[in-house]
């Protein structure tokens, strides 16, 4: 009986929620930065999905046209082994976006879960979780990721695990802070009086109300995660050599940049455009959702 009551309330809430949701979308689309960011990002996602279809050449196929400067045949030139740079960059979109989105999703789930549990239950659980989160908070995410790669070893899976764990503290702190303020709200007391379980309260009542700062932090973190992956790949801690990632391509190009500027320039442009589009979107989302909790990109 209690349960029907609660769902009646949430069902009643739904149209209102949908209304505010469509309203923030309208506000978001009024922001030029957001539109530019979304358009670029969508283009990149489509590129990543269709990568295998649209590459002009096999990204790993070697050719005798080594270190050829940009031309009609090879729009971005070729590398020291005669591989087409454009094809390699297109392929690299996959790894960059995959690592960016997957690490932040994992960090969001783990961090959000830890933060909500810590804030909701308080006491010794809060103490244990937050001692660890505070410890991690004392160090920049990238350094944590390097430490973890030192422990786990290089490779794509290890990089994803390392970067995800490195970003957990940001989400945990935000989630916990939100829970502490939401916990005092009357609707939580109302839900509890209605006999809602702890899990239900956290999942149906706290999480939706804590989501705005988490979404903004998530967007900002994607930008940082993409940069972190590129840096780790560049340092040689990243994926296997036959997977062309932007960081790895730049790392391989290092010995040739004095003779082949395109090898040093275009992969970086790819990284920058991707990160820039995410940053644009994150900045606009922060304004639209009026979030102050998320770690500032500025």
């Amino acid at each position, binding site marked *: 009986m209690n349960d029907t009551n609660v769902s009646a309330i949430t069902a009643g809430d739904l149209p209102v929620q949908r209304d505010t949701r469509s309203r923030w979308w309208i506000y978001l689309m009024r922001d030029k930065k957001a539109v530019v960011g979304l358009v670029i990002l969508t283009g990149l996602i489509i590129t990543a999905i269709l990568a295998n279809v649209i590459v002009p050449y096999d990204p790993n196929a070697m050719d005798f046209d080594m270190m050829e400067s940009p031309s009609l045949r090879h729009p971005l030139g070729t590398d020291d082994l005669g591989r087409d740079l454009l094809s390699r960059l297109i392929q690299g979109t996959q790894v960059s976006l995959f690592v960016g989105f997957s690490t932040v999703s994992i960090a969001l789930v783990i961090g959000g879960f830890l933060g909500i549990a810590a804030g909701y239950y308080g006491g010794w659980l809060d103490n244990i979780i937050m001692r660890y989160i505070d410890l991690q908070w004392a160090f920049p995410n990238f*350094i944590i990721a390097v430490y973890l790669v030192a422990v786990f070893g290089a490779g794509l899976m290890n990089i994803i695990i390392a970067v995800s764990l490195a970003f957990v503290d940001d989400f945990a702190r935000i989630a916990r802070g939100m829970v502490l303020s939401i916990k005092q709200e009357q609707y939580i007391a109302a839900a509890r009086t209605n006999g809602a379980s702890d899990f239900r309260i956290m999942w149906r009542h706290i999480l939706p109300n804590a989501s705005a700062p988490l979404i903004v932090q998530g967007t900002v973190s994607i930008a940082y995660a993409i940069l972190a992956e590129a840096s780790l790949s560049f340092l040689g801690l990243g994926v296997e050599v036959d997977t062309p990632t932007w960081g790895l391509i730049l790392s391989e190009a*290092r010995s040739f*940049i004095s003779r082949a500027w395109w090898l040093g320039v275009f992969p970086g442009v790819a990284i920058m455009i991707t990160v820039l589009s995410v940053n*644009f979107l994150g900045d606009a989302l922060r304004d639209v959702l009026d979030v102050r909790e998320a770690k500032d*990109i*500025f």
Partner: protein
Amino acid sequence: MSRYLLKRIFGALIVMWAVATLVFFMLRAVPGDPLAAMLFDVGDPEAAEILRVKYGLDKPVYVQYGKWISRVLQGDLGNSIYGSRISVSRIVSEALPRTLSLAGLSFVIALSIAVPAGLISAIKRHSSLDHAVTFVAFLGLSMPDFWLGILLIIVFAANLHWLPAIGYAPLSEGFWPWFSHLILPSIAVGTAFSAIVARMIRSSMLEVLSADYINVARSKGLHERRLVLVHAFPNALIPVITVIGIAFALLMAGAVVVENVFAIKGLGRVLIQGILNRDYPVVQGAILVVSAIFVFSNLLVDVLYTVVDPRIRYD
């Protein structure tokens, strides 16, 4: 205040102990015996056993941990397992001044760009100059630091031949050799930091400039330059200092990557080379020292905060 300081120093030491412990146990929890890595898979179990006993790896982990901690407390970080088995303390103490030089110069360059940019951006709000600063700041934040380093090498070293592309010269060899080697990496490291600080100064200045006391001063007929620089700017700096603390950490993180572009044998390069070589003593030592820098620079910023803003008191 002194009680607060003692409490904070104690807290920082606890953090350092926790980091050391985590690093020690995590490196041992992963599959792959450091000894196996050390012996490069020579198929000689007897030799391995002798070494195992020699390095105390046959003892229980907590005994190894106790020994390791007590040695670390005496400043002994062990020896590199590579080449001439040079001591980790020596590697680290040679690397430290390079990293600090790099981070320090980045800090100075970044601030000398960020402060005027942020001020102008705030004073000429919504002008095309403000928009330009904002856009450049976005670019600076979205640009990987190591790539900026590569671009700078392409332009200033490979093509113009104005500056050396790689390497490091200590300050004892003179200011110019030191400076000319560090200027490009410093720009690469400092750009993201500069963007953050410029934006921070802008928003902080805008907040202060709309405060009542500024309006009063303005209506008194105070000169605009004096108003901005003497009345508004110092107050706008207060929130910026916390960010500078966070951003110093960012500079250190940037140095870790950029040192590898410019082949500067600082802490970052030592750490990364150690990881690539699976040289555990070096990795442990480098992590400990890098961590110590973070923990104590955080502490320093907190203390600095009370000095800059007398309204804040810790009891």
